[in-house]
């Protein structure tokens, strides 16, 4: 190894600049790759989640019995019941998902990586369980369960950002909620979620949505009018309008549903059956979910990592150049080595090891500097609860292996060229 280093640093400046070329390429790969890895981790969590259930949402608009929500982006209680009746369905859990509007952050500015803070309300009476994600690990407290009301469980990023601990109070939609649990960090979606009972989340959504609030108010008023004896004296048109307004039901505000399947049932077929048998719904089967996540992931990785690879290819060209010059300068030495018994393969091996060592050195330095940059940026954004980069073991080992391989490949032609040197001609060289 020392001999290799001595050979490499015969021309200190040239070798240093060559290694520097690899350093820049590996540094770019590590920094951009760690960005991709962070996103991959999130995607992986999402994939795990989506492949563990059939996700149902409102599909093509339909006007069922004058229900204002039937033609909106909401599922209705009726649709939930219809889904439950489809053969093969084990359990259905209605849910309400709505963005969390932080009262302390008026402008909502800043860049957010990963899932935005979201309120996840679910029907706690349902027996639904995601196949892949039955429980979430708790850092403190407990998960919400049947019977809970007016309480929340928060993801780790929310807890860090709002400095929340179990038994603290959190204001959501103008109402106070008791924090009964804080989740462990998952590196994916749940870190930004606030889990609560379905009715609570529905109330938050209506409070944050002026149109829904207005509809509810009108419905309350319409129901009163319907019950009044004077209703029958109103014109048919007005009666129809009041009846329509009275149709508003809080319980029909359902943004999506999660469906589990009975043992032995093919979830892909079940997903199709639900779509066929229940009008006006869209389904995302496990396979659909996986495909969706993977296509985003592939594209993202290609763009991010591809740009780093370009830098590396450029770096490897300088390795080729350096090694060719090195062979040219050491022609006589190669002649001597052949004269004392070196085969072509020995010469090739020596030069490949040297070029691989250049790659390795560049890789180690690039990895070190890249990791430092990633660590520094993560540290700077820690207070905003943002972690943009993730240097995974896979990335680190991959970067090193890649740099060594790059060096070796770059050294192939110069090594072959060295092996072909005629010893007689080489020994005559000045």
């Amino acid at each position: 190894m020392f001999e290799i280093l001595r050979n490499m640093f015969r021309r200190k400046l040239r070798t240093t600049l060559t290694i520097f070329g690899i350093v820049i390429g590996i540094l770019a790969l590590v920094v951009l790759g760690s960005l991709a890895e962070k996103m991959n981790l999130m995607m992986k969590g999402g994939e795990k989640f989506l492949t563990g259930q059939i996700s149902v949402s409102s599909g093509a608009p339909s006007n069922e019995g004058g229900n204002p929500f039937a033609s909106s982006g909401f599922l209705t209680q009726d649709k939930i019941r219809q889904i439950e009746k489809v053969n093969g369905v084990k359990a259905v859990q209605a849910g309400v998902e709505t963005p969390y509007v932080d009262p302390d952050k008026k402008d909502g500015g800043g860049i957010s990586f990963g899932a935005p803070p979201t309120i996840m309300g679910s029907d706690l009476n349902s027996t639904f369980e995601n196949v892949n994600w039955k429980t979430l690990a708790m850092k403190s407290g407990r998960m919400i369960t049947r019977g809970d009301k007016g309480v929340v469980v928060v993801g780790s990023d929310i807890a860090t950002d709002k400095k929340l601990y179990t038994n603290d109070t959190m204001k959501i939609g103008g109402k106070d909620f008791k924090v009964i649990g804080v989740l462990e960090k998952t590196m994916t979606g749940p870190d930004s979620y606030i889990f609560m009972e379905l009715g609570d989340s529905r109330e938050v959504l209506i409070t944050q949505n002026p149109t829904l609030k207005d509809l509810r108010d009108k419905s309350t008023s319409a129901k009163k009018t319907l019950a009044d004896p004077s209703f029958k004296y109103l014109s048919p048109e007005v009666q129809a309008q009041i009846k329509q307004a009275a149709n508003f039901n809080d319980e029909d505000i359902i943004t999506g549903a999660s469906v589990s399947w009975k043992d032995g049932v093919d979830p892909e077929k079940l997903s199709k059956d639900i779509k066929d048998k229940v009008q006006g719904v869209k389904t995302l089967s496990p396979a659909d979910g996986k495909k969706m996540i993977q296509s985003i992931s592939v594209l993202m990785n290609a763009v991010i990592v591809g740009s780093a690879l370009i830098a590396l290819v450029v770096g490897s060209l300088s390795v080729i150049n350096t090694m060719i010059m090195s062979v040219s300068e050491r022609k006589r030495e190669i002649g001597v080595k052949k004269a004392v018994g070196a085969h072509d393969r020995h010469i090739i091996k020596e030069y490949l090891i040297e070029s691989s060592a250049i790659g390795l050195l560049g890789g180690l330095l690039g990895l070190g500097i890249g990791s430092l940059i990633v660590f520094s940026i993560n540290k700077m954004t820690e207070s905003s609860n943002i972690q943009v980069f993730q240097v995974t073991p896979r990335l680190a080992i991959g970067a090193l292996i890649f740099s060594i391989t790059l060096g070796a490949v770059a050294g192939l032609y110069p090594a072959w060229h060295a092996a072909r040197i005629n010893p007689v001609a080489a020994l005559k060289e000045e």
Partner: protein
Amino acid sequence: MVKKKTDNIILQAKNLKKTYKPSKENIVHALNNLSLDIKEGEIVAIMGPSGSGKSTLLNMFGILDKPTSGKVVIDKKDIYKERKSEYPQIRSEMVGFIFQQYNLIPTLTVLENVTLPLRYSRVKKGSAKRRALKILEEVGMKERAKSRPTQLSGGQQQRVAIARALINNPAIILADEPTGNLDTKTGDEIIEMMVRLNKKTGQTFVIVTHNPDVTRIADRVIHLRDGKLEKIR
């Protein structure tokens, strides 16, 4: 211990020809039907003017340059009948080289330079080191084992080169102008060393030289001219 010279022919050139064609019109006969026998344990000096074929002959003996026709037989083995892929192995086992410019590897220590041939023969490091130190002691360079060639004088470098040539215990040592870059006193020391080693090990020395001091210690002096044997003294 002094090894006696034998009548055994260790090295033979049989009707050796080497022709170069630098251009269509220009044909160079570097060696022209040359035949020569060298006995085991001999010190043979090869002399001749520039272009007489001395270095070409040496390269052929050293399995570095294949003849256009003819044979080179080393220890009864017709060398150029072997597979080309075997040449390095045969070379390392049968031949040791000493060059005018020493040709030590500058990034290797004295010890590493001497053990270089053993690296290609797959001799274990420990054994190689022991052998090398023994030979360095023979040539008076053991104390400089960790030095680099740039830290040595010309004479010292040539001693190391001699040690390298001997490390595999080859039958033949080929020396191309070994004293060419040395002053007279140092050159004489090198010649003395080669004579001493020849007497001790019985290895055959074939020395291309212009130095008359070499011809004085040689058992035979072979003169070449225009690729042919002119005379043998």
